[in-house]
């Protein structure tokens, strides 16, 4: 069968406030192929998909679907045309049954406009059998594990009789067996002539299932490669680009001999969330926290900073016991915390860059000793220059900046308080490579100035490159501690994997 292009996107451009999200990106999809869409966080993968599914509107460019030009206006319109999407987050109703979830909005009807429940349940069962899933479809969705739920959402998308199936990070909540099952289904679907766009962070999976791949970087198209003609190393180079040199030039901090302990955490925990975490941090030292999502990294950071209150254990700061119940206490002890979820816990979107940067300094001074607008402005301008925050002026709303710049604003907010202990939870997630390298450089620079840094990241190479020591979390406990300099990724993975069999039914 000759290659039949079912989808062609040409010269797509999308402008967001302050940033060009996509710049002249081309993409095409052949019937019956799995096409991986790759790139770092913030490269524009999701934006491209959202453009195709009518969530975002393109400023320039053309989309040809089955040879005809289309302009998707809403996700519903895209679905009606046969473009189905499964997102990473499960967009289903937890309290409806599995069958209802699959058919909601397009229930088979009996005569007289009554829902045909038998047909719903029967067809749902048949559909799931294709995925090799044998479950009771009349149970509510939340009865089942996240893995099963993800499969149900895929089943729902497939049943829409789609010509194009988009899978946006579908495997992040699946275990190995479930991934294999999903791949089987994908291979089946390929045979029926469906084109599948597959977005993932797991490169092994890309090489296992995809036929072709398109790489994006910073909103630009890097290239289009056949899977069997590119090596993994080469692919990573394409994804990261020339900024790799900058990253490789970074040096981990050197901790002075006999540097004092600034933070000591002993058996700290919250029953059921994270338990018995102990570690210490010296002046000017950087320790990395590695572990899978949900392993207790973020929980530990939040506990140390008082975002959540520990119910056992003790914290010592500068060798004196410290009671930290709320963030205010932590700030009094010269701690700073850049949270993982920037939108939820970090930026005050509608306030200006200036106010956002001044916020913590001001909260420490108290409401009655206000900074004058001039003082705020000077402070903001100082950090805008120092961190290279890309904003037209200090009075721009923070919510309108790009992710990387928002992250820098949060960093500025805390740097302005001259902290001694800095906790960074995934500071480089979801921002472009350039900003990423800058934030790493900054973090190391602060260590050089004597700040102790606790650095949480999912990217092991980043952790290994910067940390003096690496603490590995697993199953809400500390699983091990490794020296940063001499460890390899495999060593960390080893520690993570050792106990993974225990996690089976978690």
């Amino acid at each position: 069968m000759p290659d039949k292009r079912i989808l062609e996107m040409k010269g797509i451009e999308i402008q967001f406030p302050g940033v060009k999200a996509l710049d002249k990106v081309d993409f095409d999809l052949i019937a019956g192929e799995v096409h991986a869409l790759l790139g770092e966080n913030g490269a524009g993968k999701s934006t491209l998909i959202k453009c195709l599914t009518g969530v975002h509107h393109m400023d320039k460019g053309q989309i040809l679907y089955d040879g005809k030009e289309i302009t998707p206006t809403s996700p519903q319109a895209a679905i009606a045309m046969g473009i189905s999407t499964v997102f990473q987050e499960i967009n289903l109703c937890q309290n409806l049954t599995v069958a209802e979830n699959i058919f909601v909005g397009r229930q088979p009807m009996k005569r007289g406009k009554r829902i045909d429940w038998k047909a719903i349940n029967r067809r749902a069962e048949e559909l799931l059998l294709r995925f090799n899933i044998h479950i009771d479809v009349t149970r509510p969705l939340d009865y089942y594990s996240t893995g099963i739920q993800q499969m149900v959402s895929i089943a729902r998308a497939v049943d829409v009789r789609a010509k194009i199936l988009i899978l946006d990070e579908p495997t992040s909540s699946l275990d190995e067996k479930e991934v294999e099952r999903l791949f089987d289904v994908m291979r089946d679907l390929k045979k029926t002539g469906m084109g599948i766009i597959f977005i993932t962070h797991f490169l092994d999976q890309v090489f296992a299932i995809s036929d072709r791949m398109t790489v994006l970087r910073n909103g630009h198209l890097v290239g289009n490669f056949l899977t069997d003609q590119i090596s993994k190393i080469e692919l990573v180079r394409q994804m990261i680009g020339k900024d790799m040199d900058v990253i490789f030039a970074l040096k981990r901090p050197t901790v002075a001999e006999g540097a004092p302990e600034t933070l000591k955490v002993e058996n700290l925990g919250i029953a059921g969330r994270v338990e018995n975490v102990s570690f210490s941090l010296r002046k000017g030292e950087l320790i990395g926290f590695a572990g899978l999502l949900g392993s207790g990294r973020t929980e530990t950071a939040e506990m140390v900073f008082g975002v959540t209150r520990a119910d056992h254990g003790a914290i010592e700061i500068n060798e004196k016991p410290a009671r930290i119940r709320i963030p205010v206490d932590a700030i009094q002890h010269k701690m700073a915390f850049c949270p993982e979820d920037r939108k939820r816990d970090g930026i005050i979107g509608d306030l200006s860059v200036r106010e956002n940067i001044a916020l913590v300094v001001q909260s420490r001074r108290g409401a009655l000793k206000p900074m004058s607008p001039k003082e705020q402005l000077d402070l903001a301008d100082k950090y805008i220059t120092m961190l290279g925050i890309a904003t037209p002026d200090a009075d721009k709303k923070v919510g309108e900046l790009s992710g990387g710049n928002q992250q820098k604003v949060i960093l500025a907010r805390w740097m302005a308080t001259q902290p001694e202990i800095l906790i960074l939870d995934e500071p480089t997630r979801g921002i472009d490579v350039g900003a990423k390298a800058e934030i790493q450089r900054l973090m190391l620079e602060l260590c050089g100035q004597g700040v102790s840094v606790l650095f949480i990241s999912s990217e092991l190479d980043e952790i290994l490159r910067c940390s003096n020591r690496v603490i590995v979390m697993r199953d809400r406990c500390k699983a091990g501690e490794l020296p940063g300099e001499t460890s390899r990724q495999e060593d960390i993975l080893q520690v993570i994997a050792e106990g993974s069999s225990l996690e089976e039914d978690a």
Partner: protein
Amino acid sequence: MKTKFDFSRIMKSKITWAVIAELMILLVCLIIRPEFFQISYQESTGMLYGSLIDILNRSSEITIIALGMTLVIALAGTDLSVGALVALSGAMALKLMRWDMSEFPTAGDYSITPMFWVILVALGICALFGSFNGLMIARFGMQPIIATLVLMVAGRGVAQIITNGRQMTTNFAAFKFISQGSVLFLPMPIIITVVIFILMSLLTRKTAFGMFVESVGINPNASRVSGLRSSLIIFTAYLITGLLSGVSGLIYASRIGQNDSNNAGINYELDAILAVVIGGTSMSGGKFSLTGTVIGSIIIRTIITFVYYFGVAAEATMVFRALIVVVVIVLQSEPVREFMGKRRTMRKVAMGGELHG
């Protein structure tokens, strides 16, 4: 340069449209009856008179409450108890002035409690009830609507208990001065409103309190992580609103010269909320504008005055009011502002001007 920038932002804001709406209503008045705008000076009272003065005077009760409500709404809350507190404040004041009617059966120019204590206790009890709201919401995490609904109902009950369910009247001159007196040719309520407006502006803009309120209103989680004591901020906002309801209650009671637990402050919570919303503060919290709130309250009063002045049939007044409010709110709505903004931008571009942004 700084003020210039703010000015241009104000021009694009909802407040502009509130002002335009107000001007349009006044324009209609001007066309129908130019004498609406007459202002005269009466030597015997030393006060200015006229419909415009009247609008300002009569809007005081709502404006004062709405200034507190602005903070509450900026914190993504609501306070339904303000009307009840107006009744409570009046009841308390009358109780203190007359204590027991059987001893002093006739209303006269007297009070058995010094004026200072009358005001202090009446305001104190409202501040106390306001802080009860604050405590329920900030400390115990109750939904603002539910928490303040408690006092909305119970407040009038307390007012009834204080006065044994009786209506008392006073002609005590010092108390009447609150509503009838004048300073600088202006009725006292206007003066009180201006003073409170200035105090609130100082509180929110000359301290960091305003920024903290906005910050907590926009993103409570992030504010907490940034070391803001959000419960304290929320608590303070409800306390202030309670206190200001008390002030409003004193003005009202002074105006009618009696306590009226059943009718005093009826629907004030709705008018106050409406004033805040017309003033450009979003019900979902965040940025707020005290000036906007004042304008919103004046609009509401203008509409009421308009209705009375032009003799709209009594049974139609409510509907008529609602109609105008709808028009104002639609004028301010996102699509309309966007549409008008676009037209302005297009014109600017056509003139070779710079894009507004």
